[in-house]
């Protein structure tokens, strides 16, 4: 591990850039209006980002070639998705997901 001083500055820098990414759009957009074209574009952000965050977990990247399938997460996704369709209830979906992952872990 690097020196304590180095680690503290790194944490500070990482914290600042993350914070700015989070707050700057909020602050700047209070003064300006987004054009309708931008708003239309942003209306697709929720589904694309949620899908991307899910799909990146079902593949394992390999540099320079197509990814491997993450069998555990892919298998656990199936009952989780089914429970979403049936229950439409987020706590139920998360519990089914965790249990499925635990069971898949035992099987594989």
């Amino acid at each position: 591990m690097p020196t304590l001083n180095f680690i503290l500055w790194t944490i500070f820098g990482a914290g600042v850039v993350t914070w700015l990414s989070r707050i700057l759009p909020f602050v700047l957009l209070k003064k300006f209006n987004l054009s309708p074209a931008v708003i239309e574009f942003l209306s697709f952000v929720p589904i694309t980002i949620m899908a991307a965050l899910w799909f990146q977990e079902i593949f394992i990247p390999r540099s320079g070639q197509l990814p491997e399938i993450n069998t555990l997460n892919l298998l656990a996704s199936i009952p989780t998705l089914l429970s979403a369709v049936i229950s439409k209830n987020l706590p139920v979906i998360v519990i089914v997901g965790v249990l499925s992952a635990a069971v898949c872990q035992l099987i594989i």
Partner: protein
Amino acid sequence: MHPELTIRAAMKEVLPTTLGYIGIGIAFGIVSRASGLSVLLTALISIFVYAGSAQFVLVTMLLSHSPILSIIFSVFLVNARMMLLSTTLSPYFKQEKTWRNILLGTFLTDESFALGMNKLNYTNRTLNFTWFNTVNLTSYLTWIIGTGIGAMLGSLLSNPEKFGFGFAITAMFIGLLYLQVIADKTIPIKQQLIVILFVLLLTYFGMAIIPAKVLIIVVTLLGCTLGVILKHAHA
């Protein structure tokens, strides 16, 4: 989800997030301790950076003695999507005071964003400070508590994935994605499904050529672009 935008409703709706945060927070605490960081430094990272996967990147790069600027830049890249999230969210809080916008932005995460976007479908497309702030702060506290537990467990529990908690956040995104698709009446379901399928293909093929750090943001931008094209093709 309920139409009310109260503290009570927020506490109830944020529960699934807290379950995931405890699991991943514990995982982070353990990984960080195993890398040689003290309990205090581990907690400091969760308190000041507060950014799931970027925190794992940070610890890994510290361990490999990367230069400070390349660590900070990597963290920035991993979190660049935050700009897209806060931009999407900002119109709903335009009437609120600036300090409230800053507070909401400071504790914004993928999970609180996703919950907020889902909530819109039940509240005639409005959000308020109280509800969002409660969701944010509860998530933040849970994340720190999870990290603390993990850091203290240290070597006792070597593999938290074993208990399935690592999948909690992914399960939450699956649930929120499904609920979003069936509830969002502003975009036809067929168009949404095409965009999701496109995101799947992009993620799969993208992993071979796009660096992991920028994959999410690139895929999201391309997915939104396709969405706009589809919408205009049908209009």
